[in-house]
């Protein structure tokens, strides 16, 4: 292709020159914190004054934030076209092009690409990483379980942040992918921070492997993209998209497949159906990690990737060719929005509700992006200014929702962390003398078998091989009986062996294979561990209630965050959610396929209203459900400060909307507020008019339907079912008064018994997460595990055997070769003479 790959600096801005520092600072802090933490582990200054590295992390995140703000300021203040800033060239290599008979330079390096999407995500990531870091100091360092290992947390934390910041700043899909994977690694490390808990280790593996499935597709997609464009630089690709001659040689259907594969990567990273299973389990990590993954970094990466695809859909040469993919993106969003919201209905774990809410809200953004991409691909927006406005606003609404959701969700997670932290403390305070002894629910023979394996140090596989007498690869009842006898566990008659066998036999063929045995013993270990750990669940909303009076700031933050997610009028998420719903229906009117996602997001609005209200009411309203909840104390300043700040950001949604965020975020040409053409009040009034008094009667009705569903019906149902007034004598802050009064009134008047519904098969299915995990596990067991054991055998026999023999062979050869170095100079000269003759022979032979 004809484009040059060397990036040129379009506009010089001092802040942008330092932009690489935004990601380099945290990246360099990673080894520093890790190293200092190892060296000064337990040192009182390190522990109390430096918070085990927390303050170092906070400093670099603060510096990153300041630099990010400087970049944003320069960008907004007139440098709005600084797109390519190549910063660091690793090395340049000239390649010979046969077609042009010229040498072309290919440089390997890292550059910074700054446009509107970058600036927005950069701000979100840097701002939230900084706040979450503040929160983490209050959260992690006050928990004795983390003592002397917080440096690991902070080191991985800053690496995670640098991964996100790097991904946003990178100037090519290749670097995007590299940082994307860096985040994958960090998510694994942080979700598994409490790796001594099997459930955390399991969740970390699950998150890593599930996102890996998406990443493989992304990698294939990127390879295809490289094949088509000869480069992965945004600059090169986006220029090529404008080049009609070049685009004539590109097959649009192949390109659609390519982008589709890349989209699967985004589905994995942003936890959308069907790769959503890792997100709820990821709650095993410490709460700051949940906040980081859900608000600031990881899940936004998938959205960012889809947003980066906009130029493909907007290219004139591809007009109308990519609508199918746009539909798929919107439909995946629609499915996930409803599914995740439904599962959130029945969750009792505070953090899990939020996890499903994240999934559902991200789905909104995907739907919004899908619609915007459809509009960009099918409208003639390059020439028609009205169409241009529609495309820009649709894209902007999705991005605005990303912003609002990140702010609200970061706040919600931190607030939930504060609640859990304090409930946990209160529990610890009350019960720290109790020591429970639990009986395992598993058969005692299996427990003994597990102990036997641990004592003898055998792996399950070795044990299995030793008891598989006929070598069939499966254990029948007779073999199992013999094995138990030989291991001196129990000498059981067949009829008592049978239930034991059935407990292991997962697929019901009355025989045991290796994966079944491994899974059963694994579950046993995990359950035992959980039992010993703690009976009291500090995350369960069943143990809370009435906390509004105990933790006023947290309750307020949680309330504002919930309202923002629900789309309560005038607060944060309202503006963007209305926009997404409106655009989905706008597209649906043009393309009937889109009725599905459009209906989903509309329905989802009501569902969101219900589960978010339910969560708040169960936690903060009503009377305390346990003794523990009655003794919760307010939280510390490190935790309160970020909550306080984010509350205002979410409340200020109307100001952002008035500033024309939805117009500005996606489009450089449109900046009504920043160039002073339109005042703030004017902008706010314009947005209000648009939202509440739309001239188009269809959208007028639609906006009120969404409003009623999300802000009245959903919350109303929750109000009638959950919560209630606080206990006698408990005094809440005045702004909770109306809510609690309304709650008490509705609950008193319209309360209905939902136990029948709660026990229905649908509710059971929902609380089992619609059996997705179950079926995935089954599929793994039947197909992947069986195959992988065959592969393991082949590996140890064929490949390892070959490697071993190569190794042995080369060591033998090495001994022989070294034996020629006799140590006698005579022999050396002889060898040199032989070499000389050989050289003569070779030169003569040629000449």
């Amino acid at each position, binding site marked *: 292709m004809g484009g040059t790959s060397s990036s040129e600096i379009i506009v010089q801005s001092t802040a942008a020159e330092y932009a690489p520092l935004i990601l380099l600072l945290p990246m360099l802090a990673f080894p520093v914190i890790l190293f200092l933490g190892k060296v000064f582990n337990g040192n009182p200054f390190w522990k109390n004054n430096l918070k085990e590295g927390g303050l170092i992390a906070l400093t670099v995140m603060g510096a990153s934030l300041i630099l990010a703000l400087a970049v944003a300021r320069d960008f907004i203040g007139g440098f709005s076209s600084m797109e390519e800033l190549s910063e660091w*060239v*690793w*090395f*340049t*290599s*000239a*390649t*010979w092009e*046969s077609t042009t008979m010229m*040498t072309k330079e290919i*440089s390997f*390096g890292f550059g910074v690409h700054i446009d509107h999407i970058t600036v927005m995500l950069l701000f979100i990531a840097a701002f939230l990483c900084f706040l979450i870091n503040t929160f983490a100091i209050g959260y992690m360092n006050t928990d004795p379980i983390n003592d002397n290992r917080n440096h690991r947390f902070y080191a991985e934390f800053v690496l995670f942040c640098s991964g996100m910041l790097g991904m946003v700043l990178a100037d090519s899909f290749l670097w995007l992918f590299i940082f994307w994977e860096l985040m994958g690694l960090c998510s694994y490390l942080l979700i598994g921070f409490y790796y001594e808990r099997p459930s955390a280790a399991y969740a970390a593996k699950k998150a890593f492997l599930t996102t890996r499935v998406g990443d493989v597709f992304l990698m294939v997609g990127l390879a295809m993209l490289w094949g088509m464009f000869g480069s992965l630089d945004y600059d090169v690709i986006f220029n090529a998209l404008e080049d009609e001659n070049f685009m004539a040689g590109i097959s649009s259907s192949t390109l659609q497949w390519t982008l589709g594969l890349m989209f699967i990567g985004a589905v994995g990273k942003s936890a959308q159906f069907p790769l959503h299973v890792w997100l709820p389990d990821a709650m095993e990590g410490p709460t700051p990690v949940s906040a980081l993954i859900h608000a600031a970094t990881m899940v936004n990466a998938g959205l960012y990737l889809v947003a980066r695809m906009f130029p493909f859909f907007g290219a004139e040469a591809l007009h109308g060719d990519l609508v199918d993919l746009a539909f798929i993106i919107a439909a995946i969003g629609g499915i996930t929005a409803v599914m995740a919201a439904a599962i959130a209905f029945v969750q009792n774990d505070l953090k899990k509700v939020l996890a499903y809410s994240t999934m559902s809200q991200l789905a909104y953004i995907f739907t919004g992006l899908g619609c915007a991409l459809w509009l960009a691909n099918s409208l003639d927006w390059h020439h028609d200014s009205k169409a241009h406005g529609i495309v820009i606003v649709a894209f902007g609404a999705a991005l605005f929702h990303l912003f609002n959701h990140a702010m609200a969700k970061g706040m919600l997670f931190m607030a939930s962390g504060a609640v859990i932290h304090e409930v946990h403390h209160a529990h610890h305070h009350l019960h720290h003398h109790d020591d429970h002894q639990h009986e395992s629910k598993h058969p005692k023979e299996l427990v003994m078998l597990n102990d036997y394996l641990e004592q003898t140090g055998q792996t399950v596989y070795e044990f299995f091989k030793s008891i598989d007498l006929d070598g069939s690869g499966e254990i029948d009842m007779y073999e199992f009986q013999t094995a138990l006898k030989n291991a001196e566990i129990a000498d059981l008659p067949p009829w008592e062996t049978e239930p034991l066998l059935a407990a292991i036999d997962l697929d019901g063929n009355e025989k045991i294979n290796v994966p079944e045995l491994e899974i059963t013993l694994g579950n046993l270990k995990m359950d035992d561990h959980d039992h010993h750990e703690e009976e009291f669940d500090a995350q369960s909303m069943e143990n809370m209630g009435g906390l509004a009076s105990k933790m006023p700031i947290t309750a307020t933050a949680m309330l504002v965050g919930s309202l923002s997610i629900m789309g309560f009028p005038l607060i944060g998420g309202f503006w963007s959610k209305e926009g997404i719903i409106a655009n989905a229906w706008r597209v649906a009117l043009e393309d009937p396929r889109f009725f599905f996602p459009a209906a989903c997001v509309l329905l989802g609005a009501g569902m969101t209203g219900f589960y978010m209200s339910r969560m708040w009411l169960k936690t903060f309203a009503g009377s305390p459900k346990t003794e523990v909840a009655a003794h919760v104390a307010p939280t510390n300043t490190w935790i309160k400060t970020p909550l306080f700040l984010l509350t205002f950001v979410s409340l200020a949604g109307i100001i952002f909307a008035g500033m024309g965020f939805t117009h500005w975020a996606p489009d450089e040409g449109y900046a009504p507020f920043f160039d002073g053409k339109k005042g703030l009040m004017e902008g706010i009034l314009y947005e209000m008019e648009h939202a509440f008094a739309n001239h188009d009667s269809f959208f007028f009705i639609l906006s009120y339907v969404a409003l009623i569903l999300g802000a009245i019906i959903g919350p109303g149902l929750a109000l009638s079912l959950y919560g209630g007034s606080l206990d006698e004598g408990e005094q809440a802050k005045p702004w909770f008064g109306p809510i609690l009064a309304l709650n008490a009134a509705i609950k008193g008047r319209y309360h209905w018994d939902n136990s029948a519904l709660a026990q229905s098969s649908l509710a059971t299915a929902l609380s089992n997460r619609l059996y997705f995990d179950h079926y995935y596990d089954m599929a793994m067991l039947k197909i992947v595990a069986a195959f992988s054991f065959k592969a393991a055998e082949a590996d140890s026999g064929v490949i390892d055997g070959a490697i071993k023999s190569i*190794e042995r062979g*080369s*060591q033998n*050869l*090495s*001994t022989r*070769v*070294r034996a*020629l*170095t006799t*140590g006698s*100079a005579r*022999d*050396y*000269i002889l*060898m*040199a003479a*032989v*070499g*000389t003759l*050989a*050289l*003569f022979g*070779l*030169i*003569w*032979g*040629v*000449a």
Partner: protein
Amino acid sequence: MTETTIEPFAEGFVMALAPEFVLVIGLFTLILVPNMGDAKFRIPLTQIRIPWFLGGKRGTLDRDPRLPGLFASIFLTVSFLMALASFVGGMERVNITTANGTELFRVDEFSRMFEVIFYGALSLASIASIDRLPATSTADRSLSGLYNNRRQVDFYILLMTCGLGMSVVALSQDLFMLFIGLELASFSTYVLVAFMKETPEGTESGMKYFIVGSVASGVGLYGLSLLYLWSGSLQFDGPGGLSEAFRTSGMEPLPLVALGLILVGFGFKVSAAPFHFAAPDAYAGATGPVAGVLATASKAMGILGLLRILLVVASPENTEGSAVWLVALGVLAAVTMTWGNLAALGSTNPKRMLAYSSVAHAGYMLAALTAVGVWSEDTAFADDASMAVVTALIFHLVVLVCFKLGAFLVLSILESEKGGHTLESLGGLAKREPLLAVAMFIFMMSLAGVPPLSGFVSKLLVIMGIVKVAVGGALVNGGTLNFSDLHWVWYLALLMVLNSAISVFYYLRVGLVMFFHEPEEGREGRLPSGKSIRFAVLACVMTTIYFGVGADQLITVCQSAANALLNVW
């Protein structure tokens, strides 16, 4: 770009050869200063005594055994910086020619680049050697001999003559000058290897190195004289020079025999198999810094000689079709890299392991050199490809100083507690000296060619260069790429990749021992060694990383050096 021609000792001569003159001044200083005393000279028949200073009772300062090391380090570093500074703001090219038109020296980017390599390696070795003396004189007999400042002077004088000889090789435009420089440097290294005469290994290895080396030199000299006999000229370039003679009648038997003999001579210098046998013994017997110099600067000198002879004198353009030495050098490269890696695989002495690894690296460099010999119809392409390969070669030699010498310096620190001769003496280094272990690990990773370290970039550049030569020729002819169109040098690149894979095994083993094995009995706590050698190691680590991450700058400089050699100004 300016180019001036001056006669020896004419105006501007001293400035043009400033780094060399600094070394000469340094030599005199080293000889004079430790002999300064209170000697007085009595004018005969009078009682007037004039202070004469040379001889007599020496003061405390000039009796200090560390003084020579300090002086040598300063002079070598100054030379190094002067050579480096000549790259700043455009190089002034100077030809030094006798009145009758015989070209002696040429100062350009190419020769200066090699001087940077030589002086850099030597000054690091010199700095590292200062601290090989313990703080106070000990009862240990082998050490008390070393604790004599005159003995120390010998060592550093040899280091400096070595540097002088090497730079003469770099500058020379003439077979005679080339040989003089070669021998000056070689003889210095023979003695340096045997410098630890108190130990049996030192003497034995020095002797062996000398015997095999002098045989190789003799053979090489015979080749050089045959060339002179055939062409009647000692000049590489210019009218009536060797280059022209090759162009007219390069395929006669006499020059071919000469070429074969010269290959043997330089083959020993770069330790190409099967001329490498003395190298492992020499490295194991010599002290760490000297072994480091042998593996880097001395090797660079050999490659430099080969570049001059093979590319300037017997270059492919001069012989129509691929160079006559192509097959011979290709086979030599293949044998050398494989042999080196196989032998290193089982070595348990880290110094011998590094020696064999340096044989393997010689193989990689010879492979690159082979690729330059491939002839292409398209001269523009041929120039381009040769440029890339020679650039890669020079880059490789530069970064080799960083990590190969660095590795030897780490072993030298271990020598301070009589370790460094067995792999197990490195055991538990990570616990005893974490930073040193990390440094050693970085060197090993760079030797293995792990990104983003400089060893990776150099290997990548060499492989890309070879593949470019192999593929590019095919593309120019056909347009589409058939496997059969690939030139066979392609297999050298493949072999290099395979060999790199093998080498990872023994490089990683060092890391394994350092990080996971327990220290040997009796070895515990920090190592007894001074600051200066640690400073040298630090410098090596920094440059290893810097030239990996910031490779582009060094590549540009190497390109200008390659340009100067290939006359593509």
